[in-house]
């Protein structure tokens, strides 16, 4: 059996960020001064992704969103470029 998926949002956030930066052109700035801006950008990209896949649009990393992010997929971005 597969191991239970870790649903701690904090632990999975790097995965979500990597996913959104690869497929939704998410560009997080490194400075601590722009944390709130980064959070808003992340929420916005997450909403965009959730809407595209027909998920409930929350802007939060829930189990359904994580499931889509971890499913093997085609490497062409859905939006942009």
């Amino acid at each position, binding site marked *: 059996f597969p191991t239970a998926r870790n649903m701690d949002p904090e632990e999975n956030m790097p995965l979500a960020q990597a996913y959104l930066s690869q497929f939704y052109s998410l560009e997080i700035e490194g400075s601590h001064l722009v944390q709130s801006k980064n959070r808003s950008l992340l929420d916005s990209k997450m909403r965009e992704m959730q809407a595209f896949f*027909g998920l409930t649009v929350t802007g939060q990393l829930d189990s359904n969103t994580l499931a889509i992010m971890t499913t*093997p997929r*085609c*490497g*062409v971005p*859905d939006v942009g470029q």
Partner: protein
Amino acid sequence: YGYTLPGWRRHNLTYRIVNYTPDMSRADVDEAIRNGLEVWSTVTPLTFTKTSRGIADIMIAFRTRVHGRCPRYFDGPLGVLGHAFPPGLGLGGDTHFDEDENWTKDGAGFNLFLVAAHEFGHALGLSHSNDQTALMFPNYVSLDPNKYPLSQDDINGIQSIYGSLPKASAKPKEPTVPHACDPDLTFDAITTLRREVMFFKGRHVWRIYYDITDVEFELISSFWPSLPMDIQAAYENPKDKILVFKDDNFWMIRGYAVLPDYPKPIHTLGFPRHVKKIDAAVCDHSIRKTYFFVGIWCWRFDEVTQTMDKGYPRRVVKYFPGIGLRVDAAFQHKGFFYFFRGSKQFEYDPKARNITRMMKTNTWFQCKEPLNSSSDFSVSEEEVHSGGVAMFYHKNVNLLIFSIVHVLKITYSY
């Protein structure tokens, strides 16, 4: 669906497989790629030709991680499986698969045919669809690779770039849908397939099962997109394969896959050059011999030695007494041959060498009267076998009663 215009400006595109994955045999990779392209060529005017050198429109390669000058990287096992670039020069049309995945021809790892068909959608100009039933949905879904994978959304998308299949003739012809219970129903070809019988007619096929009460009516292209319509003959050989004939070509099918390197000319089976088409074929599984019907002649093919038997062709009328002239279709069931000609069906006992029953063609579909119903049927083997006889019996009883009444009326009138 989404798409980028104008797509490819030519409809005759080339592709080249630059390297092969070690996960699969080269023949299986070739087949997966060819079938992946064929998915799109069956619904558009596009054609694809394989080249082995130089620059092709669609360059196909298996790569890992950062590869060449490609601006998109692969990420090791799982995650991203492949990517492709929209039509254009340079990278345009090029399709890459992540070699770190386990590529297969079935459902064990990632099915190369399914991923390739998706990526070729990009190479032809489609972007991702958010319809979860679409092949262009971005996440890998393990579908039955033997079934045609395009959804209506995919077809609408690709046809919005390239249009639909070109019309075969200048005069548009309404596609006719045959009716199972049409009293004048004729068949193009019939074959068994394991525990089924398949009746071919135009673009369609009926499937009946020996064990269950059901009739299915489908497009031939939904099983085998690469097969032509108006098949002329078909049979199941002793090695669990179906051979399908049209004009002077034949295709070999295993399950739901048309085998690579087909069609082949029928002359490779041993027919003389003047034979241009086969009317019907049936394999006698008890002796592993196949009979091919060409006009008033029949040939016999030895399935063990894969050669034509000497002393053939012979006249159908002499070899199968009672069958007479040409045969439209034939198959074997429980030791009997069933020959079809026009709207008639002949049950033939090959051991006794005589006709045991004569029926309408559609006795295998249990049609409720009136016989022109197209969908009101259900099948059980026993019922199907007895259906024609029962109707014949009722008609005779009615005729007898009518005759008695008529004679009595005449007698009393005198």
